[in-house]
């Protein structure tokens, strides 16, 4: 099992938006999926998942409905709103740029930096 690392500040929102973008989903499933997709590298602090969901809902990036799951229980399902989609796109793009830039800096050979 690889070592788990903490999420950088502010990336949790981006990850939640991405997961929800794939289809309406409830909170527990979001936590599951994040952990699976990141192959257990990303440690999702469950304690901060729900406040983050509520905050995003409050800002109008997510919408929520109560629906039945396959097991017949009611759960709160989150969907991405149009505003949320735009937000996801801009944030994903800026994240991409950041990664590339950080990558470039890290690729510098030590001699080249002089």
């Amino acid at each position: 099992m690889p070592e788990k690392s903490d999420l950088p500040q502010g990336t949790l929102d981006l990850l939640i938006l991405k997961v929800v973008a794939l289809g309406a989903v409830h909170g527990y499933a979001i936590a599951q999926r994040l952990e699976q997709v990141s192959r257990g590298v990303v440690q999702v602090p469950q304690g901060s998942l729900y406040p983050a969901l509520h905050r995003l809902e409050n800002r109008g990036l997510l919408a929520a409905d109560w629906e039945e799951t396959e097991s017949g229980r009611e759960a709160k399902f989150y969907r991405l709103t149009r505003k949320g989609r735009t937000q996801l796109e801009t944030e994903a793009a800026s994240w991409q740029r950041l990664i590339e830039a950080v990558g470039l800096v890290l690729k510098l050979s030590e001699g080249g930096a002089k």
Partner: protein
Amino acid sequence: MTWWQRLWRRRKMEEQLEKELRFHLDQHASELIAQGHSPNEAQRQARLALGGPEQVKEKCRDARGTRWLEDLLQDTRYALRTFRQKPGFTAIALLLLALGIGATTVMFAVVNSVLLRPLSYPEPDRLVTLRVFTEQIGELWGFSNLDFGDAKRESLTLALAAWTYGGGTISEPGEAEYVNGRQISAELFSTLGISPVQGRAFRPDEDRPGAAPVAIISYGLWQRDFGGEPSAIGKSLVYDGKPYTVVGIAPVGFQLDGEADVFTPLEPRQNTDPRMQNRRARFLRVLGRLRPGFGLAEGRAELALIARHLAEEYPKSNTGLSMIAYPLQKELVGDVGSTLWLLLYAVGLVLLITCVNVASLLLARAVSRERELAMRVALGAGRSRLARQCLTESAILGLGGGVLGVVLAFVSIHPFVAFWPGSLPRAQEVHLDWRVLVFAVGASLLSGLLFGLAPALRVPVRGVEQMLRAGARSIAGSSRRLHSAFVISEIALAVVLLVSAGMLGHTLLALSSLDPGFNVHDVIAARFALSPATLGNPEQVREAWQDVLDRARRVPGVDSVTLADIIPMREGENSLPYWTTATPPPPNHEPVALASCVSPDYLKVMGIPLRQGRFFNEHDRIGSEPVVVIDENLAQHAFGTKDAVGKRIWIPAMSPSPVLIVGIVGHVRHWGLAGDDQSRVRDQMYYPFAQVPSPLLHFFSSIMSIAARTTIPPLKVVQPLGQQLRGAAGDQVLYEIRTMEQLVSASLARQRFLLLLFGIFAGLALLLACIGIYGVLAYLTGQRVPEFGVRIALGASARDVMRLVLRQSLGMIFAGVGVGILAALAAGRLLMHTVDGMRPTEPSTFAIMIPLLVAAALFASFLPARRASRIDPMSALRQE
């Protein structure tokens, strides 16, 4: 969902939050069970993974964004519940705050109406009042008519208007009644920017000698004598023996300087008043409005120029004379401003003491709630959240006190204004407006914040565990220090107020015991106007006055009677220049003395001691040698000796030739017991009414007063005297009737009023400080019960314990007194600048006031101390 919907559906959202988290836990647990964990173990792991459900919920609630409002509602409900649980504490705190905020609001309302709110004329900031200044007398409010005319004609920056006092008997319509009047220049209404409510203002052609007599009457007189009928315009009014046509009704409450009922044009006065043509007779009040495009500085510069021209043209009267313009508002308010601010500061101190008191009450409660707070921190409440709750509680308390205070202010403001000594300028405008309400709300919230801060800052952060583990009786040192700081500041504030009150009391005592220079008992004085019918030739006038004196003397209970143009300590004065050598000093550099025109019995009526020579008798009349009597001050100043009888002085206003001094009398405190030492003109002289030149008799007849010494209580002769003097036509009335005792007492009204208010404030401060000390000590000793128990068990006597407690309180008391003395010295300087005749802070004041305070404070600490000394060691130790 908008924020208020979210707020509205709070309960539902709480349920959904609960449901959502439960679903999460169940899902997680069932998955773990599927992986082979036991159900109990699965649930435990799921909960661990999520973190404490309550903490997660709190964070979710925070994410909603309406958190602050929810909290506010919750805190409010919580606060109201705690207040209901402790009705005694709540009632005391509310009462204290209501008193403090109410008193402060009343003072602010008065300050706001009198000093801050602009005058109720259009563009009030462009209105100015004009004064003249001479080196010899200093600043004078009066202009001579000729100077006013020249300034009005020449000024480009200012539109000027003038008025002077008048008054007379209205004999028709209605009962004969003496009313105050003003003679005004035609432009006065337009300069102020107001117009009569009915009819019109004066036209320029009516403000000329020989114009048909017209009058504007006050709204009050219109209602009284004309029944408020619009047909009053054009009707006739017999005023001062002459028929006037009413052309206008002044607006409600219109007043220039005190109320008046009849306004007549100024210039027609030329016919009867010789002062109108005399540049040295400065009796007109002048106000102006800056013309568009000009500022006060330009107006002042131009006035200086005009005054210089006049001085060149009329060196005899105008040398060294300058003219100055001041904003009208400042002028109207006069020196009331300093008194008002002083009272506002004093009342602010009382409010501060109140706040400190409530703060120490709240703090005591907060300390006893420390465990509760620690428990809540342990359960996940944030520090700021708890601090906010403390502040909400105190803000509610503050606002509650504020509401009660505003009610209190609303009820008491008019009695307070009526209670003001003399007349408070703009008193009719005093009321509570939005500004006052904003002030009251601000003061309440600020007080709430002030007294809520200490408990809020005590919310525990660290060491929650120890706090929970420790017994309820433990107490942190910082709280004890804070409590001591409260007591110290309360005592210091009380010292300031007590010493100020003591200084005022001391001053009042010292002033009251001053010799006024005359016998104040059993003397009555009243203004009196002869019937216009008798004002024919000078002989007739003299006879009429003689007749008045004879009739008055026959009234039972009257011992002696005199005429006088000015009465000591009453408004009104007449200063005349004089000199003692044949060559006059340069114009406007002559010495000046207060001149009274009296009849021979004046000395007897007033009981003024004759030092040398004689007073007037019936041989001093028109045609005989002009004589004066001077007071000892003038003798000393003019001749350097008290032996001046037989010398002569030049008094150009009385006679072109030098006047013989026939007697010297004692000095009279004309300017009041408090004001006389500070006044610029303190020399006095008297001249006989019988020697007033014939052309001036008519004018003098309109300003004379009657004074009588009585053998019975003076107010008892008022009625028969009035009957006796009514005259053939029944139109001669006595008015402004005062006993000399009343006038003397009124001259100290300001000092007495301040003393009374400061006395009340100081008493209140003392009481509050004692309550504060009692509360704090009771609380602190309560906290130390186990300690005392141990001490007693180890052999300390009741005395030792008492000494321990009293030593603690003495420490606080003396620290407070020390700080208070320094502050009181500063406050004393402020008082000396504000109040006439104020004595500097004297050690004796401290010597009386501070033991009083220490005694009261010790008394307040005695009860807790005794209680501590009677602790039963066994039960005290068992408590721990």
